[in-house]
């Protein structure tokens, strides 16, 4: 497989996904019951003012024209103006929240990736023994819990029983998230719990597959010590699929962020999306959902490229065989 060809294929598909998704999102908002202009102006609006607003918002244009107009602005980086908060450019609030969410996601990532990889590998090596059973059950339990349930449990433990950490994640005015890193801990932990289960189970099974493979058997029967075999022979092959999974789940992680941010009142993309839904703020909703899609597509793309690059079977074209 030619690396460049694969790269351009993936890139093309990424763009296609974004285009199709953006159209679907656009359509979705179209089917929203009720009239956008009515939503903006409220029940007391006069028919004349409704008509005027419709005209100024371009609501009377054909669908494709509106889509083209909207998408064109999007590409130029203009996310439009909020319907609910009139006069507010979405750009002015959107990127800040996105930044917060990305920090939250990265914090969670920093928590759960090493943890779950380590415990997954450990469980895989100890397959069938007690540590494996404990890790596997714990993983299954945390994976099964929706974020808000583990969040509630965390709140009860660390904010109510032992008041260590804030329940609500606000950033004091004039300060940045960097100065209030403690507000990240509980939300990040709730995500960590869910993702830990998922990733550690993945890692366990991929470790198990690798440990049962012929080449690990060959390495052990070459007289290599067990620890060496695990680190030098097994780990790389066992980590690769899990890292792919982690990358592919970035979008999913952002989905989970909505729940966690709602629970903790964290000022991020997730709570912004939910409030956009609740206020039917169409442009904001479109921007948020499209951005979540974008994150997913981009992380998939990066993961895919990384996988290609790290996997010698693909990196070096087989000369024969």
């Amino acid at each position, binding site marked *: 497989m030619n690396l460049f060809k694969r790269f351009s294929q993936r890139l093309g598909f990424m763009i296609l996904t974004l285009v199709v998704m953006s159209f679907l999102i656009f359509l979705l908002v179209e089917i929203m019951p009720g009239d956008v202009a009515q939503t903006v102006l409220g029940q007391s609006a006069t028919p004349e003012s409704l008509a005027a607003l419709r005209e100024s918002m371009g609501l009377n244009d054909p669908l494709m024209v509106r889509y083209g107009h909207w998408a064109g602005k999007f590409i130029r980086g203009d996310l439009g103006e909020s319907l609910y908060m009139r006069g507010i450019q979405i750009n002015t609030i959107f990127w800040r929240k996105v930044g917060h969410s990305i920090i939250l996601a990265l914090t969670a990532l920093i928590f759960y990736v090493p943890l779950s990889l380590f415990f997954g590998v450990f469980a895989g090596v100890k397959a069938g023994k007690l540590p494996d059973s404990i890790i596997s059950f714990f993983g299954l339990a945390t994976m099964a819990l929706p974020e808000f349930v583990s969040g509630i449990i965390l709140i009860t433990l660390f904010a109510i029983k032992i008041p260590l950490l804030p329940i609500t994640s606000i950033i004091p005015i004039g300060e940045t998230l960097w100065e209030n890193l403690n507000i990240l801990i509980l939300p990040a932990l709730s995500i960590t719990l869910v993702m830990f289960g998922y990733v550690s189970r993945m890692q366990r099974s991929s470790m198990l597959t690798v440990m049962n493979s012929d080449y690990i058997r*060959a*390495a052990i029967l070459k*007289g290599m*010590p067990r620890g060496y075999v695990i680190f030098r022979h097994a780990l790389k092959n066992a980590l690769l699929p899990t890292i792919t999974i982690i990358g592919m789940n970035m979008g999913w992680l952002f989905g989970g962020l909505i729940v966690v941010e709602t629970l903790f009142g964290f000022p991020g993309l997730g709570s912004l999306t939910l409030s956009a839904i609740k206020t039917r703020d169409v442009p904001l909703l479109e921007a948020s959902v499209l951005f979540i899609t974008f994150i997913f597509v981009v992380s998939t793309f990066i993961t895919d490229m990384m996988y290609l690059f790290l996997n*010698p*079977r693909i990196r070096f074209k087989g*000369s*024969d065989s």
Partner: protein
Amino acid sequence: MKNKSILEIKNLDVEYSTLTDKVVALKDINITVEEGESLGIIGESGCGKSTLSYAIMDYLPSNGLSNGKILFKGENLLEKSPKEQTKYRGDRIAMVYQNPYSSLNPSLTIGFQLDEVTMFHRGFSRKEARNASIEALKDLYLGDAAGIVRRYPHQISGGMQQRICIAMALLCKPDLLILDEPTTALDVTTEVVILDIISELKKKYNMSLIYISHDIGVINKVSDRIAVMYRGEVVETGSQHTIYKHPEHPYTRALINCMPRSGIVKEEVRLNAIPGYVAKRSAAETGCPFVSRCEKKTLICQENYGLKESKANHFSSCSRAYAEDVPDKERTRLKIPLENNVKEENILSIKDLYKYYGGPGKKVRALDGVSVSLERNSVLGVVGESGCGKSTMGLTVSGLLKPTKGQLIFDGIDIAVSWRKRTPEILKNIQLIFQNPGRSLNPSFTIETIIGRPMKKLLGIKSKTERRKMVIDILKKVDLGEEYLSRKASQLSGGEMQRVALARAFSISPDLLVCDEPTSALDVSVQASVLNLLGELQQESKASYIFISHDLNVINYISDYIMVMYLGRICEYGRKDEVVGPPYHPYTEALISAVPDVDPDSAKQQIRLEGSPPNPTKKIKGCPFEGRCHKKIGKICETTAPPKVYFSDDHFVFCHLSPGKLGAK
């Protein structure tokens, strides 16, 4: 022998506990390997050969339990701690596995995987280790050793991978080398090269060898002494000559007699099949493991049983000797011309058939202009190594693949189309037998449904009772009873499944049967009975076969005509006696010479083919075999396609060489 023993296995038992019960994998094994000796272990699949080798390495699955002693130079390996084990493994005892590709770590370079052995066991520095690795590779005749160490396993061919595995095993000059079916996954021409190298290195380093294989021909090439295993027990050991000429245990005798080998043809002999199949062994079972399949069983088989020395160095577990029996099989080849000299009309004519896979630029030429005809009531054997296009040809004829171009004239109609466009009449008349019987029978259905379905669909028999009657009839023909009607495929053994597949094919009396490696997934003892059945059914039904196999012995046994293929083209075609005897195409010659012989005394001239077939995506101007040919003339072979040379009316080769140079008659 005077040599002191390297390995002594005493009363070794291995049991596996599964969810439902306990299965005996090895029972009371006693084996000794002398210094410098090569012991071949032969047996069918499921006989515990591999378990034995892993038991020696003390590397059994977690549900396996071993009991007994494995003494290596007097020390019991089973009592070693994991740390001590690492001192033996890879250093004093090394192992080579069946599948070289999966035994090499795909994400590490070959050099790394070689170097670590000496770095660990010998304390070499990185540089010393690398030099040692390169030396070891050169031992295995790997040309560009310095280049290979930098590559990843997927970048080299299967034959080379196996050589690397052997080099890896030999890095520390082990006292004992265990080879577990090292050539089974390889083509026969590659196999012969590897076997030669093994024999040579064994002499060079004076190692002891344990060579495990299901193929007695292969064992013959590399072992001094042979141990025959059956259902977890060693039933007979002795020198290769003794085992072949004077087998004592009924299983050994049956095993040898059921193998198709050069000189055995269907016109003369029925293969000696062993009824039944290799069953799993439960812990409660006692007595001779072969008793249920033995023709000569008596009451004492259950009690008076155990490995005894009958002659010097010949041990057998059956108390009754058969040495005085007249050998019931011929061992020399008889050259009797085929009887059906009467030319029949052609049932199928293949004209200039091409089949390309893949898109433009990356075309794989699976069939590259094949023209051949098949007579009614005859068997055409198609032989060649993997990737030669023989299966593709079978699939095109059966309609599963649509040829890229060319004609397939069947009964006067061109059927070079896919199955969707064929009439039910043609679908009925061409049947296909698959390699893997387990996968060709739908596991969700009963045997009755499986056989009855084509009757309903293609013969239009709607009545269920009528179909049942017919199914019972056809089952009888393949030696299966009525009780099979309600069984499912998963409840059958491999041989039974293939019988059901045959029953399904013959239930609608086809004119042409395409058999795609129908016996290569089966054990030899079962293969024999299926081959017999195929022969009988052919004679009875007067159907024609296209019989595809990589095994020249099988092809030789069953066919009337043989076609040798290489890289999507025909090398040679003719009546079978004409093809297997000179003059022949250089490739046919190499193929015949490479087939390991069952008879250890037969001396054949060896032709070593180097390299592997060229990339099938490249367009070949000249002869496809030119790169590996031992009789290559020169430039003409590379640039010009070889002409079709007729030796007789229906015997031709594609070669530039004059018939005289292709081996005298």
